């Protein structure tokens, strides 16, 4: 009886150890993952919905093996753009990426080395259409299939779908034209769409130093004339509120309307942007925000909420975080 009880305790202890070890290990793994992202470009016209059965996928294998680690669906019935961005979060290691789409040559990116917290941005991946029979080459056999699709009845919808290269739901000379395009015809997966990934220094995209410049350089906002003139000051719903006009204090005195200051920038699409700002916040545990926008699209937004600074929801994933919610 005593022996049985001892055996039970030992078993329980081992189970706890396994649980703790597994939990710790997985938590460690989550912290050390890196990001791989890129954009896949198809031959479909922008505005044309992707065809079911031909949705593109990214399959991620351990480098040099057939050990599948992850599959990312790139398209769905709602996909109407020819350019499709993707992001994968991977543990430290080396991987091969296979981008597959029915009717296209596979695109293979080999030996992507993922390091802790690295952010790898692949060059644009332009898929080559026309491999209708899946033999890893765009050649006369594919042209023949495309020509025959003209005469096929609806009983052969699958083949007609494969031959519908531009995914306009019709088999026309446009599809044949794409296959015959010299950019695609004669190409093979082995020669044209298999590349070895060459990392840039530190796995980051190089930052351009060609055109460093200030976009805003307001060392003092506290002018006697109020907020600096480069800023648009919008307090239109608080018409009797003149704060911000004579000083740099912006008082939101209404619980029904907002106030904002906005600065239009020379648009930036690449490189590094750094904002350094200092501001006093009064009673701002919730309800203040600072955001960068692309016209009306919010790209980055920090808010105060319940006494904490938070990065708002459009941020898809926290890579690492210290003392911030």
């Amino acid at each position, binding site marked *: 009886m005593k022996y049985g009880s001892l055996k039970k305790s030992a078993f329980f202890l081992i189970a706890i150890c396994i649980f703790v070890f597994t939990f710790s290990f997985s938590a460690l793994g989550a912290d050390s993952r890196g990001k791989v992202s890129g954009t896949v470009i198809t031959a479909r016209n922008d505005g044309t919905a992707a065809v079911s059965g031909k949705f593109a996928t990214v399959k991620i294998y351990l480098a040099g093996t057939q050990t599948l680690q992850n599959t990312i669906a790139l398209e769905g019935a709602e996909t109407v753009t020819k350019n499709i961005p993707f992001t994968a979060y991977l543990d430290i290691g080396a991987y091969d990426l296979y981008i597959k789409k029915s009717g296209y040559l596979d695109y293979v990116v080999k030996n992507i080395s993922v390091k802790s917290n690295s952010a790898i941005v692949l060059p644009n991946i332009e898929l080559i259409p026309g491999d209708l029979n899946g033999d890893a080459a765009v050649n006369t056999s594919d042209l023949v299939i495309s020509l025959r699709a003209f005469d096929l009845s609806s009983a052969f919808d699958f083949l007609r779908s494969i031959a519908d290269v531009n995914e306009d739901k019709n088999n026309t000379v446009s599809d044949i034209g794409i296959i015959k395009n010299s950019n695609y015809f004669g190409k093979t997966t082995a020669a044209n769409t298999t590349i070895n990934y060459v990392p840039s220094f530190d796995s980051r995209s190089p930052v351009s*130093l060609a055109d460093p*410049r200030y976009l805003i350089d307001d060392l003092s906002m506290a002018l006697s004339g109020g907020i600096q003139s480069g800023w648009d000051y919008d307090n239109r719903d608080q018409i009797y509120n003149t704060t911000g006009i004579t000083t740099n204090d912006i008082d*939101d005195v209404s619980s029904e309307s*907002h106030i904002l200051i906005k600065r239009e920038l020379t648009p930036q699409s690449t490189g*590094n*942007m*750094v904002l350094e700002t200092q501001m006093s916040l009064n009673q701002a545990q919730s309800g203040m925000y600072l955001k960068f926008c692309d016209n009306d699209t919010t790209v980055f937004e920090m808010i105060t909420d319940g006494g904490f600074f938070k990065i708002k929801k459009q941020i898809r994933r*926290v890579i690492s975080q210290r003392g911030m919610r």
Partner: protein
Amino acid sequence: MSSSASYKFKIELNLDTKISVVNINGSDCGIFDITNNFAQISKLVIGTTDAAILTVTPTRVSLYSNYLVNENFNGFNRRNTIRLENNRNHVDADWRWSRQF
């Protein structure tokens, strides 16, 4: 955060890797993804929500592009001296204090 205080923010956006680095009052707050779905950044907005009643007083706003090091050690009215003592208050913004040479 305190309900009423002065804060220094340094927010770095890498538009190529779509990553942001946030630093508040010299403390590293982490690395965050920014949304993928944008072509460019054309606007900076600081504001309040409809429900909020509060005061924001910006005293300095600098935004620059592609400067890797841009520091004059005077920016936030701190003393620009670095002394060999255990005092972290004499270096600017997000510089790391180290005596481990």
